[in-house]
């Protein structure tokens, strides 16, 4: 429960940063997707269930702030967190390459889905234009921020990771 609260707090801080300070600083005209990094990191470090939970909360925050239909982003992030959980088996303490690659790929897919659902279906067929102006910078800057945010999250969650490993093992054995 404590860990859940920690995740919520982390997401909340990331959301606030993303919606205020980082959008002011304006790297290449895009904002790094900290919620994505957190979701992927949590799924990667703690497993599918944590990924689902983190993704759901992150998506819900986005749903609430962006308006529109509540549940869409929650669904999307939840699946991202779930997918991230598959990579828990290749988790090695602080090897940062794996989460960076995961974030890069998943952010790209995420952006692709949003473009496809939100723009392409509305008849915006200028695919290359949208990708060069939004998707590529977004993926790049989010990947760069993963280096920072993942190491922070790793330190914050270290004790829980050790616990989680034991739990996973027992769970694994149970399965």
């Amino acid at each position: 429960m404590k860990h859940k609260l920690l995740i919520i707090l982390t997401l909340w801080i990331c959301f606030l940063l993303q919606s205020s300070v980082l959008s002011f600083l304006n790297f290449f005209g895009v904002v790094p997707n900290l919620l994505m990094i957190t979701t992927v990191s949590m799924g990667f470090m703690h497993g599918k269930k944590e990924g689902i939970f983190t993704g759901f909360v992150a998506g819900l925050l986005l749903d609430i702030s962006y308006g529109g239909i509540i549940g869409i982003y929650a669904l999307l992030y939840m699946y991202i967190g779930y997918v991230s959980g598959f990579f828990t088996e290749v988790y090695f303490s602080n090897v940062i390459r794996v989460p960076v690659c995961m974030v890069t790929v998943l952010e790209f897919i995420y952006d692709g889905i949003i473009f496809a659902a939100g723009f392409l279906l509305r008849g915006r067929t200028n695919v290359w234009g949208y990708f060069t102006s939004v998707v590529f910078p977004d993926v790049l800057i989010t990947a760069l921020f993963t280096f920072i945010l993942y190491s922070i999250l790793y330190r914050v969650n270290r004790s829980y990771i050790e616990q989680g490993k034991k739990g996973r093992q027992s769970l694994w054995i149970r399965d």
Partner: protein
Amino acid sequence: MKNKFHHLKDKHLLVIMTIVCIVLILGTCTTNVVSSSVRNVAGYAVAPFQNGINKVGGWLTEQYSGFKNVKKVNAENASLQSQVDALTSENTTLMQQTTELSRLEALYQMDQEYPDYPKVGAEVIAKDAGNWYSTFTINKGTDDGIAVDMNVLGQSGLVGIVTDVGKSWATVRSIIDDESNVSAMAASTSDTCVVTGNLTEMDSGKIDFINLIDDNNEVAEGTTLVTSNISEKFLPGLLVGYVSDVTEDSNKLTKSGTLIPAVDFRTLREVLVITQLKQTTDGAAADSVSGTDTTGTAASAGAKSAASSASSASEGSTAN
């Protein structure tokens, strides 16, 4: 909740949560209840913090852009500072040149006033170390034809006389020096007197004159005094100053008083040296008395001046 999570399989949890999401989506699509209630909560949980962070973020952005500007501003500041320095020195030079110009204009004007005499311009380069400004050094000497006893003019009148000369310098004793005695006369009436420096009067900017023979009481305040034609070393007609006050001496024959010199000795910078000597025209007679010219002739002047106003004998003893 945790226990529930642990008992569920990942896939089952995913399915359950997916259903929750779909319910939410359908809920928002069909009714306003879900969205409005959730957003109200979010309004309290998120908006105030975003506001605060935005302020911090804005401040940070300001600092960041300010920081970026600092370098530019520094470079600008350096160039501006050097410009200010250059302009300041230029301005100082120009101001000096302006004041110099006005002084030289005054000097030129005086040169026009006494066109008969050949003159050499010189600058005051040193003053005697005391507070009296009674002697000073100029930057012209024998190389420029200056010799001892030449008259020195400045601003608009008589400054003094050369007492010592070197190759490229000369010492001038001004008329306000306590040892200086100048034979003068009233420009209008030619009544003669002796102008003598007085250390005690120097602060008030005045000097004394004595032995004024003024039988008709024509000399009064404001009367112009010029060097007299009976002077031994001073060329005639050079402006000395203006009478400030006159009193009759106890002998009822002569008068004495004070005059204001035409020259402001405290601000004297440029002078003109008249390169014509009076004594050369006088020849041997002048030479014989030159030894007494500078020192206290005033004491003896009173006795003899009453008798003969313009004799050659009195000229010899009182002049300068």
